[in-house]
């Protein structure tokens, strides 16, 4: 056994022995110098905080899933003119930062043009760019 492993093994034994001693000590001895009411209230607060965090994590996961679904499946409702959208994407296809096959724009349906326009426009807004 290396020195490091030996010292880690000693710590594990210390933890185990400490727990056994804490369980063996009477409640009176454990509580000495503490207010039981305060301990109970703190315990309830920790349970409430943990439940809130579980709820928060669940909501965050649900929101992320909803955002993904919105981008990929929701119908695009747009007030943009289809010709303006095609022109916008045509211009974007010439922007070196964006990869759009210009030749495919002519083959895309109006709905796909509007969807791509909306996504690209949102992406540029999110990254601080502007239309």
């Amino acid at each position, binding site marked *: 056994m290396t020195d*490091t492993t030996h*010292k*880690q093994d*000693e*710590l594990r*034994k*210390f*933890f*185990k*022995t*400490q*727990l*056994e*001693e*804490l*369980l*063996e*000590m009477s*409640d009176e*001895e*454990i*509580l*000495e*110098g*503490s207010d*039981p*009411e305060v*301990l*109970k209230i*703190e*315990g*309830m607060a*920790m*349970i409430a*905080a*943990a*439940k809130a*965090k*579980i709820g928060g994590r669940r909501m965050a996961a649900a929101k992320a899933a909803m955002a993904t679904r919105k981008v990929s499946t929701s119908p695009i409702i747009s007030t943009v003119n289809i010709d303006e959208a095609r022109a916008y994407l045509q211009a974007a296809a010439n922007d070196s930062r964006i990869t759009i096959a210009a030749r495919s724009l002519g083959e895309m349906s109006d709905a796909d043009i509007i969807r791509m326009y909306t996504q690209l426009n949102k992406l540029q807004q999110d990254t601080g760019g502007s239309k």
Partner: protein
Amino acid sequence: MSDETSLSKSEVEAALTQMSPADWKRIKIKARTYSKALTYLTADDIIQEALISLLSGDRVWPRSARSVIVVINAMHSEASNCREREQSGAIDHRVDISVLSQQYDEDAGTLVMPINEVTPERIVESRGDIEAIERLVENDEELQDVVLVWSLGIRGKDAAIELGWEMNKYEAARKRLTRLLESL
């Protein structure tokens, strides 16, 4: 969902709610010990992560187990797992970074500056071996002796005999060590 061997989520919450003040204090003392010896998580973080794992059902609560032991075992797992992530992860959790440049340069990457608020002493303290505990009692010979026998797995009457102490002397030292660990 509950079964014959484990508690349901509502049963877990009920079991936690019914825990005695003394058991909450036992939990606090253990959390502080784990925090000092194992990880950079605070004692409150360790307790909260353990409660989250139990209340969410991620961690099974054996039906016949004593509540305080289930919670302490969960805390030990959380602290140990966190320690493993700290040691083996690509990211050093002891170091916060500050982004110096808002412009991302593909060739150069993003410039960052480490902000290390964890002192070298703290890194040595929580490296996960018995020295982390020994360092806490370096000015108290009696407590050093108690740490020594506990690290050998000897406790209670056997520990008093091993140390050549009367039982009341051992109990007084045990109480002092417990208070010290509680105050961390």
